[in-house]
């Protein structure tokens, strides 16, 4: 399993049967491939699907009429609904989404998140991200621990924020980190790395949980 698949598989274990979930573009979309048996989630796509089904094959796809938030062909699953953008975001902002999983440029010890702009370099826009992280009951950042060695988990974000104090859990190839009022707490580690290596790859002080465990699924990759 590659790093992205490994991270996605660990994120999948956070989801409960029946959760309404919004997955960001990229790595987070891999999460559905790793859901444990018996766990079915209701995928919400902010462009207007509640209950997205499996990706349609070329014969069934209707790309002019039905796409997901990444612009790719999609379809509702059984019991799913198409809604307008105000309903979609009332869903998101109103706390009807149990969990959102998204990537980050930076995340910090207070749970602040930056993932939508690098001033002067890249201005893709926030799309639905600001609403998702403010409205979802649980916000999981799923990403590689560093950007080719430079810290992404910091004491304080330096890039413009997506939202303040919104992240609950950070999952990387090195471990799982909970954001608490007292800062970041490492609750799981990948035994392929030492605790010193994990701390060195992190730009904020990591407290070690009294109940520190090996990362679920780490044995296969280590």
């Amino acid at each position, binding site marked *: 399993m590659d790093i992205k698949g490994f991270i996605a598989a660990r994120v999948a274990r956070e989801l409960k049967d029946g959760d309404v979930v919004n997955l960001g573009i990229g790595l987070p979309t891999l999460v559905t491939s790793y859901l444990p048996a018996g766990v079915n989630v209701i995928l919400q796509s902010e462009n207007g699907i509640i209950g997205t089904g499996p990706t349609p094959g070329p014969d069934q796809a209707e790309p002019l*009429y039905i796409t997901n938030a990444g612009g790719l062909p999609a379809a509702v699953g059984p019991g799913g609904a*198409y809604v*307008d*953008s105000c309903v979609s975001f009332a869903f998101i902002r109103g706390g009807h989404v149990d969990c959102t999983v998204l990537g980050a440029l930076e995340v910090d010890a207070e749970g602040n998140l930056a993932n939508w702009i690098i001033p002067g370099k890249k201005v893709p*826009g926030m*799309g639905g991200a600001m*609403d998702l992280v403010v409205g979802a009951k649980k916000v999981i950042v799923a990403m590689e621990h560093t950007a080719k060695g430079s810290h992404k988990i910091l004491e304080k974000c330096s890039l*413009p*924020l997506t939202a303040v104090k919104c992240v609950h859990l950070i999952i990387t190839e090195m471990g799982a980190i909970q954001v608490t009022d007292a800062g970041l707490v490492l609750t799981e580690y990948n035994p392929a790395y030492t605790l010193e290596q994990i701390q060195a790859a992190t730009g904020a002080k990591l407290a070690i949980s009294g109940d520190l465990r090996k990362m679920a699924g780490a044995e296969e990759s280590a």
Partner: protein
Amino acid sequence: MPKPIGGKAAAALIPAGAVIMFGGFLGCGNPHRFIVELAELGTKDLTVICNDGALPNGPDGDEFYGVAKLIHNKQVKKLICTHVGTNPEVARQMNEGTLDVSLIPQGSFAEMIRAGGAGLGGVLTPTGYGTIVREASHVHSVVEIDGRHYLLERPLRADYAVVYGYKVDPFGNVWYKGTTRNFSPWMAMAADTVIVEAENLVGAGEIEPENIITPGVLVDYIMTGREV
């Protein structure tokens, strides 16, 4: 009753400098035939209110999908949207200084359009609080209610809204298919003149009254794609 209108005549309604809303999300639900006609006319200095800058290529590989045609054609001077990362031409024109882009969080964008059509003075949302969105001109102020902070966002309106309906009856009633609906029902309430591009013109009563999403009284023109 809305007036039936052909594609060329519909595009000709739009003057240079107009503020125009387009339904659609990454091209899905853009009024594609209308946009082709408007690109053909070359009407300049448009302010476009649309979720995004669409895509450089459509699902069939066609060049410049949806509103991307108008952007590549340099007809847009201002784009009010939520996301432009999928169309590199937007960044190019921004850097060149020829395209002004105003980015709004997507849920706020939707509600601001709703407020514009619903007679509301603004939208109070927790989204964007504590971020640089606060500095944008669409934000009126920060409001604190019972200990929680909100941005007070201004309503959004336009001179024209152009939406794409899969089924449209002679009264202008609209049914949207799949995810083409997105912002369109609310844009149809938030503009002075509303044009619906009909994919299929259906007979009166063929859309069940309970399933009408945009009531025809909101619609001024039904664009059929045929000169009528």
